[in-house]
């Protein structure tokens, strides 16, 4: 059987998902889409269940492509039970989505999550009554502590066995009449797809939902009957038909909320409001923002350096032993050294920085700090011709460029998506951050690494300005963003979430690193490497880099970490400074930070903004990288580091 978790953003859906997901959880792309869903197979009371964590959606009516995908999945007929997760402290607003989910006529359980939060706000909810009115089970829970989740899944199994469908709640009489009229037109024709309930379809058509209007367009006789019905609604209520339906749903939700909830005491004094006085302050907010990211930076570097130094020492020693064991210049030495350096690269160079970075990012994400950053940065994003929400793909870009490119789907206009996708790939991802830390911060100084991050932000801003003059926006809507209450993330959840991302490196990237490292060793042994380096020599010469780094740039296209690990391998030394000057390390890092995105990112770009867009991104980033690295070469040639 298959369960879908649906709910509005920040309702604790993913926390519930992570609690039940074993470490077998996989992240997968749904066929035909590029929006990432997470799914897991889990055993509930002896039945294997496929559980899907849909992206948070505020409603089922939306022009946002990500929302449409969630809706498409819910309508695919593959979902046996929907768990509608609701933030109990925001019950009134959340019920509007609940009402829409009921319209899908799929068996459903309501999970009233964050009950502790509701209590703090002084809201008492009569779950029994809510369940009676909605006609579905209502289970209170506190997902962060796991409270109520066992009952929730027991109820899910019960609902699944009964296969009981609940009819949606009724609107006002005059609206219901029009809905019924449209249903009777649609019903005999079995239109669009059989799986779509006719009442749901009728409502969407009355709401002027562009997707379904388009679908119905091919049936001319029906299409012509929709418009007069829309007009009848408009005449009776004096507002556009979509507003009639959404206001009706809103009124229904408000009414429901008033029936089942009581404010028993005024909200307890909340320290979080006092915190926001500072965090979102016109001046101190920005100071705190800089402080947070500076602290984050030192946290990663502190841990990374502490681990990298002694570990590299150990691996150096082992490589020495290998030389003694196999003898110099033998094929077995080249191969074993290549493999060992690949392993060492993962353990000693990448993981020490990647682990604290991902844990820190999960923490900031779960804490709810990122929307506040979007609030503070909105005005600056507009200055460079971008939408305030673009900051979200940018921040995600510091983790990995692929989800960052996908996250551009939250932007409405293709022009925005195009520009932000290209810019997001220029933000150093976790792999490139590792390079900046392990090369520049480690060998030159932490401040030099900070300078690269600052330079990067400046370059992205200027690039944004340039690109947005070429692709001007068509009068955008501006920022509409929920600022959720702070949540203290549970240690277990933060670790679990980071683990999913770290595992991605260990399972996919690391083997590639080891293979790549061995391959490079072979190329070196058979002398192929020379031709590749010769091919790149105009570039390496221009930037004043050692000729042998040429090959590493090719490997960097597969995985960005490879550039660095290959570097130690290509130079034949783990102590980079013995063969490269500090200036060369700096120039190399600047180039690697900006040049062509990795293959996975190019594929994501291709899907999101087309072949031309991906090509433009490649050319654009390559030119930026060459120009910046050349400037760095000239600058530090005059003022050596």
């Amino acid at each position, binding site marked *: 059987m298959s369960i879908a978790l649906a709910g509005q953003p920040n309702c604790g859906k993913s926390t519930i998902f992570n609690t039940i997901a074993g470490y077998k959880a996989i992240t997968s792309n749904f066929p035909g889409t590029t929006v990432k869903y997470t799914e897991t197979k889990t055993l509930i009371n002896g039945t294997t269940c496929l559980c899907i964590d849909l992206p948070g959606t505020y*409603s089922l009516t939306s022009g946002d492509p990500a929302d449409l995908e969630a809706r498409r999945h819910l309508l695919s007929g593959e979902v046996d039970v929907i768990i509608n997760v609701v933030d109990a*402290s925001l019950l009134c607003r959340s019920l509007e989505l609940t009402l829409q989910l009921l319209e899908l006529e799929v068996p459903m359980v309501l999970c009233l999550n964050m009950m502790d939060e509701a209590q703090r706000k002084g809201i008492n909810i009569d779950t029994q009554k809510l369940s009676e009115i909605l006609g579905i089970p209502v289970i209170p829970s506190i997902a962060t502590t796991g409270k109520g989740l066992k009952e929730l899944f027991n109820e899910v199994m019960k609902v699944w066995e009964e296969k009981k469908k609940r009819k949606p709640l009724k609107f006002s009489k005059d609206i219901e009449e029009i809905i019924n009229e449209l249903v009777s037109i649609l019903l005999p024709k079995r239109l669009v797809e059989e799986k779509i309930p006719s009442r749901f379809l009728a409502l969407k058509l009355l709401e002027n939902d562009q997707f379904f209007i388009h679908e119905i367009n091919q049936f001319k006789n029906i299409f012509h009957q929709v418009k007069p019905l829309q007009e009848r609604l408009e005449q009776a209520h004096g507002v556009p038909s979509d507003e009639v339906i959404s206001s009706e749903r809103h009124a229904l939700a408000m009414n429901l909320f008033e029936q089942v909830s009581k404010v028993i005491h005024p909200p307890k004094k909340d320290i979080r409001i006092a915190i926001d006085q500072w965090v979102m302050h016109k001046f101190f907010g920005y100071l705190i923002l800089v402080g947070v990211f500076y602290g984050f930076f030192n946290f990663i570097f502190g841990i990374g350096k502490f681990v990298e130094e002694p570990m590299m020492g150990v691996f150096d020693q082992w490589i020495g032993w290998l030389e003694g064991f196999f003898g110099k210049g033998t094929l077995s030495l080249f191969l074993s050294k290549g493999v060992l350096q690949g392993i060492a690269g993962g353990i000693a160079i990448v993981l020490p920085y990647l682990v604290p970075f991902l844990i820190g990012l999960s923490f900031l994400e779960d804490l709810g700090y990122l929307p506040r950053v979007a609030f503070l940065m909105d005005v600056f994003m507009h200055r460079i011709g971008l939408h305030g929400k673009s900051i979200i793909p940018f921040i995600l870009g510091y983790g990995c460029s692929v989800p960052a490119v996908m996250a551009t789907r939250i932007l409405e206009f293709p022009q925005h998506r195009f520009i932000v996708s290209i810019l997001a790939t220029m933000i150093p991802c976790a792999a490139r951050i590792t390079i900046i830390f392990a090369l520049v911060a480690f060998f030159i100084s932490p401040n030099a690494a900070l300078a690269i991050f600052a330079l990067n932000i400046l370059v992205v801003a200027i690039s944004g300005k340039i690109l947005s003059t070429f692709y001007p926006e068509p009068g955008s809507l501006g*920022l509409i963003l929920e600022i959720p209450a702070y949540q203290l993330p549970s240690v277990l959840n933060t670790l679990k979430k980071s683990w999913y991302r770290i595992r991605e490196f260990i399972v996919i990237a690391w083997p590639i690193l080891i293979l790549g490292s061995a391959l490079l060793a072979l190329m070196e042994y058979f002398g192929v490497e020379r031709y590749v380096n010769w091919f790149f020599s105009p570039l390496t010469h221009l930037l004043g880099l050692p000729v042998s780094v040429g090959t590493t740039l090719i490997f960097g296209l597969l995985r960005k970490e490879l550039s660095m690990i290959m570097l130690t391998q290509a130079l034949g030394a783990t102590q980079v400074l013995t063969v490269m000057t500090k200036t060369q390390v700096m120039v190399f890092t600047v180039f690697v930070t900006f040049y062509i995105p990795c293959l996975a990112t190019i594929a994501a770009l291709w899907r999101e903004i087309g072949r031309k867009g991906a090509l433009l991104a490649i050319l654009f980033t390559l030119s930026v990288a060459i120009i910046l690295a050349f400037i760095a070469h000239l600058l530090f040639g005059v003022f050596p580091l």
Partner: protein
Amino acid sequence: MQKTLDQVDENRKAKVIDIQGGQGIRQRLSQMGIHPGDIVTILRYGALRGPILIEIHGSQVALGRGIASKILVEEVE
């Protein structure tokens, strides 16, 4: 007196009268629970004509000034 949302002072409450804009903006605001008739509290203004933070039905929403200037309100209290 009717004014637009971006003309209401910090810490004041206002009742939404009308949303002047197309289906797109209406839908996006209704998703956040903002409909005509609702009471919103203006919590703070961002620096340099940055977004406006409001409270609606117990949740906090940031709105760009452009959006806020399309929401017609009436101050209450």
